[in-house]
């Protein structure tokens, strides 16, 4: 082996190259393929037309998440929207025909694909993990190379268990310092995107380093890695450490006993070598991180809650000025307006960014003993059935229900509004999801991305509020 110091990305990449083609493209081996109902139908159809089997069903797992209702019957044939029902039923038919392991909707383990991968121990350090979904970057929090792929590539992985890929560049984002009161992983990643911009990571895989990242629990690391794609990066990575090993231990599909020890020994070899170089490095300190809130329609349009909407006329670049003006208009805000105090209509707590038990605990801590403000609809959608069950065992559902929140069944829900949970035109939402694009949560809906505790603070005050003021 060469003695050149390598990054975590380099090590995972090198260990998965099956064949390097003359033009530098690699046949890259894929350890885990997560499949959901929206991007897989044409891939299975392609296999059927070509008479090809799924090469490694034992490396594949499927679940339906995007289209599932969060209330009422969750039997697929009862889904009212025809497009949604057909996508779910098609997945169920395909997994049966091709022998792919599947987690049924009524199974307690069902949930958002990026929540359940780590939760079930399907996603492990050092692996290559793909899914026909851009937020596959979430799994990078375990120290796995995880990225989203298109439908042709889904078919390619199903048929060959490999992808044709060229290596990405390495970017390091180093965050140091202790997070202040009221700040969470969501604020860290929003601050990062605010700093480097939504195209800042293009062409790169980001490795997050520094004591702030090391101090995060796995849920927080997943929140950070999840939004790597929002910075334009192909994937995010966090080196596996004791926190990771403890998290993986005992999970359903994770190695057990002797196998677990062998695995940990290997995982310890993964972190970037001393002296490994990155193509780019960005440094942040926690002094730059406060509870954050987006004001525009890209995740990079973000300020601390104490901040104000920027004045587009003060922007020199004509293109950026026009974009800022369009965002201010769409969001129904005024230049210079303080974000704190902006009235909201809806609160959404959930998604693959913030739908884990830790996120629900954070929301419940703020909600406890308080009431959702009049006229505000506040939704809590656990990321999986296991998260929901855990929360109920801890009594978090009762705290939230007493405060006037709605307690729903697991699904992507209002993150993208493919199921009936949508904003109506003009509604303003404080959301723990990851995208605030125009119409993302419903046509002409307005999204402010925030952390779970900030979302709960918005629910109980009826406004964008500084959670630190609630004590």
């Amino acid at each position: 082996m060469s003695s050149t110091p390598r990054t975590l990305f380099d090590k995972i990449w090198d260990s998965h190259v099956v064949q390097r083609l003359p033009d530098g493209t690699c046949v890259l081996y894929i350890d885990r393929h997560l499949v959901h109902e929206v991007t897989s139908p044409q891939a299975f159809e392609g296999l059927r037309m070509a008479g090809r089997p799924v090469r490694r069903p034992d490396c594949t797992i499927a679940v339906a998440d995007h289209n599932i209702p969060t209330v009422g019957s969750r039997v697929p044939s009862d889904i009212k929207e025809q497009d949604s029902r057909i996508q779910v039923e098609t997945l169920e038919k395909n997994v049966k025909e091709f022998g792919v392991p599947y987690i049924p909707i009524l199974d307690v383990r069902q949930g958002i694909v990026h929540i359940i991968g780590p939760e079930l121990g399907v996603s492990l350090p050092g692996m290559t993990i793909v899914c026909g979904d851009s937020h596959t970057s979430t799994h990078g929090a375990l120290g796995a190379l995880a990225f989203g792929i298109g439908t042709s590539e889904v078919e390619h992985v199903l048929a060959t268990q490999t992808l044709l890929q060229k290596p990405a560049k390495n970017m390091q984002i180093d965050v140091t310092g202790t997070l202040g009161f009221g700040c969470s992983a969501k604020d860290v990643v929003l601050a990062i995107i605010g700093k480097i911009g939504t195209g800042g990571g293009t062409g790169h895989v980001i490795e997050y380093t520094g004591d702030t990242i090391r101090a995060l629990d796995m849920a927080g690391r997943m929140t950070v890695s999840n939004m790597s794609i929002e910075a334009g990066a192909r994937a995010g990575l966090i080196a596996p450490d004791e926190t990771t090993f403890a998290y993986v231990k005992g999970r359903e599909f994770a190695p057990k006993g002797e196998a677990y020890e062998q695995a940990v020994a290997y995982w310890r070899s993964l972190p970037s070598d001393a002296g490994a170089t990155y193509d780019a490095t960005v440094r942040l300190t926690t002094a730059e991180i406060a509870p954050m809130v987006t004001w525009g329609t890209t995740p990079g349009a973000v300020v601390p809650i104490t901040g104000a909407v920027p004045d587009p006329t003060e922007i020199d670049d004509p293109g950026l000025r026009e974009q800022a003006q369009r965002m201010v208009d769409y969001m129904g805000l005024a230049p210079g307006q303080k974000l704190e105090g902006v009235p909201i209509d809806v609160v959404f707590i959930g998604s693959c960014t913030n739908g884990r038990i830790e996120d629900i605990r954070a929301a419940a801590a703020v909600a406890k003993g308080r009431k959702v403000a009049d006229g505000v609809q506040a939704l809590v959608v656990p990321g999986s059935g296991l998260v929901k069950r855990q929360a109920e065992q801890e009594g978090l559902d009762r705290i939230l229900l007493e405060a006037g929140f709605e307690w729903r069944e697991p699904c992507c829900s209002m993150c993208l509004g493919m199921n009936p949970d949508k904003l109506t035109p003009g509604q303003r939402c404080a959301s723990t999801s990851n995208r605030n694009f125009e119409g993302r949560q419903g046509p002409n809906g307005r999204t402010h991305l925030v952390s779970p505790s900030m979302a709960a603070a918005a629910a109980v005050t009826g406004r964008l509020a500084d959670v630190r003021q609630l004590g």
Partner: protein
Amino acid sequence: MDKFTTLTGIAAPLPMANVDTDKIIPARFLKTIKRSGLGVHLFDSLRYRKDGSENPDFVLNRPPYREAQVLIAHENFGCGSSREHAPWALLDFGIRCVIAPDFADIFFNNSFKNGILPIRLPRAVCDQLMEDTKLGGNARITVDLERQVVVRPNGEEIAFEIDPFRKHLLLNGLDDIGQTLQHAPKIDSYEATRRAEMPWIPATTG
């Protein structure tokens, strides 16, 4: 994927430049679970009138072009979004070859992935071929990929260029997957090594 060797069929003229993927297949038909069946929506806005009936003036609604296997167009064919639904729709209609002065990059690549041969020929030649199509049912042209020629109805041969690697894939009916499967022995041995070195990697089959 079907092999592409020699094709003899009806060619339809579409004397338009910048035919974008939205024209080829509008966005509203993307919420589908199939890649087949999109042929009825091919060129939807050109092919159908507001009330849903066929527009009799549109070339693909007229005999003999309803049976067209070759499409001849002007510059920058296939520009716009990266949707693979565009080649899927063409293929489902029966088009296996598009001839134009040039193509948008992504569409050009997506075509090969789906077994469609895009041929670049100078504008004057495209116009000449469009003239040929007016011979109606006699407007059969032949596309011979092996010899890299388009044969006009009068027997004249026009040479075209193609990347040798892509030619190889089409002639052998290899899509990206077929191509990768040629490395199957390498994948097998990679898997065997990995199983030996990392026996702890668990299966998802429980």
